[in-house]
């Protein structure tokens, strides 16, 4: 794969000749594509972890027991009320303040001292808060009759949530979750502030070598737009597929 990109890059560079910025675009294509790849990795991985965290958070948030809903409320409030940049710095720079963290052996060496994992942790915690809030709204929007039907059938509370309420809630949040993923994509550019070479980081890195700031910033903008368009397309497809039950009815 990387050899293919390299060949393509050399071929395009020969084709561009002296014409700037195309020649520089061709020369730095492999770096920029690596950046695109890392950006996608950050968004998808954090998105998945975020969903996994969001489900228990949302369930806690709707619970009646204050010992459950209050911590969830505080968590969601903190992560939605503070800038993502602060959250990233808290994880990447902040945690090293504690001896216990620095002496945690494997956890420190392999995870918490690595910008990659710190970015994943910060993004996951952040998107979990937003997703939990979406899920909470969606769980309330599940038609009352369906919950009553589940109760009438004698489903346990666990089964009610697992088989009726959560699957419904996920379908309801799908369009709004698509928006959240786009916001996360935009937020992922902050990974460049903790030295990661995501699309933003790779772009700044290339600019430091070429001094072609506008040319490469615009290229990055176009690439971000393309990635956003791809995500929007994917979510449209998912919506179409998951809401299959509505398709025939609306005809």
């Amino acid at each position: 794969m990387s050899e293919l990109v390299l060949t393509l890059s050399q071929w395009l560079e020969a084709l561009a000749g002296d014409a700037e910025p195309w020649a520089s675009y061709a020369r730095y294509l492999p770096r920029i594509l690596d950046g695109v790849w890392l950006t996608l990795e950050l968004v998808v991985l954090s998105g998945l972890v975020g969903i996994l965290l969001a489900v228990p958070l949302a369930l806690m948030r709707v619970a009646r027991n204050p010992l459950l809903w209050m911590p969830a409320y505080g968590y969601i409030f903190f992560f939605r009320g503070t800038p993502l940049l602060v959250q990233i710095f808290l994880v990447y720079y902040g945690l090293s303040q504690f001896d216990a963290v620095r002496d945690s052996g494997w956890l420190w060496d392999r995870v918490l001292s690595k910008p990659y994992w710190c970015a994943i942790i910060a993004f996951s915690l952040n998107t979990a808060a937003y997703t939990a809030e979406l899920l909470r709204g969606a769980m309330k929007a599940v038609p009352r009759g369906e919950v009553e039907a589940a109760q009438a059938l004698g489903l346990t509370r666990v089964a009610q949530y697992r088989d009726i309420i959560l699957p419904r809630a996920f379908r309801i949040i799908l369009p709004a979750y698509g928006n959240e993923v786009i916001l996360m994509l935009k937020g992922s550019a902050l990974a460049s502030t903790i030295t990661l070479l995501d699309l933003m980081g790779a772009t700044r890195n290339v600019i430091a070598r070429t001094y072609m700031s506008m040319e490469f910033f615009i290229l990055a903008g176009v690439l971000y737009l393309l990635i956003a368009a791809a995500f929007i397309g994917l979510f449209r497809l998912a919506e179409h597929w998951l809401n299959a039950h509505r398709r025939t009815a609306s005809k």
Partner: protein
Amino acid sequence: MELHGFGHLLLAGTWVTLQLAFTSLVFGLLLGLVGAAAALSPIGPLRWAAVGYNTLMRGIPELLLVLIIYFGATHVIEWMTGAYVDIGAFTAGVIALSIAFGAYATEVFRSAMLEIPKGQREAAMALGMSRWDSFRYITLPQLWRLALPGLGNLFLVLLKDTALVSIIGLDDLMRQAYVAAGFTKLPFTFYMAAAMIYLLLTIVSMQVIQLLERWANRGYRGARA
């Protein structure tokens, strides 16, 4: 929390953050109104420009926008006027944040304008009011009430986005926390202190937005009961 004498620095930064947020809010609202007017205009190219503006800003990271304006505006001004003007971090921040806010505000204003019954505009026309008068005296006063919830959310986003301007060196709350963390080697303490201040600003903003909403809806209170 022990701040080792850096408390006043954080407060100074908070003041810069607030100035940045409110200046951007004013320009962002203007951009949003112009954008919405363009989006609803009968002139095709204006409508396309509004859609293009909105679509572009939805997909481009705010950080990229801040950097483009900071490093690019000088080039653009030089290219257009021939004069070398160095724009500062604050100006660049205001431009970038206003553009970002304006794109989303366009959408909020547009849907608010559509919510105002068409009959009212027709009545204004029948009374012989000009298009501008009809906008100024009929649409605009109601727009405020309909757009407030959406604008309130956008302001909270804007408030958090101000932190990005610290990356181009503006001495806002985020940057001061960074400086203090570097001096004292207590990064967690200072980033947490900054987070708490942002949270406080968010809480106060939410309260103010709620008050404004109640005030804007004062004519509807009886009808709801």
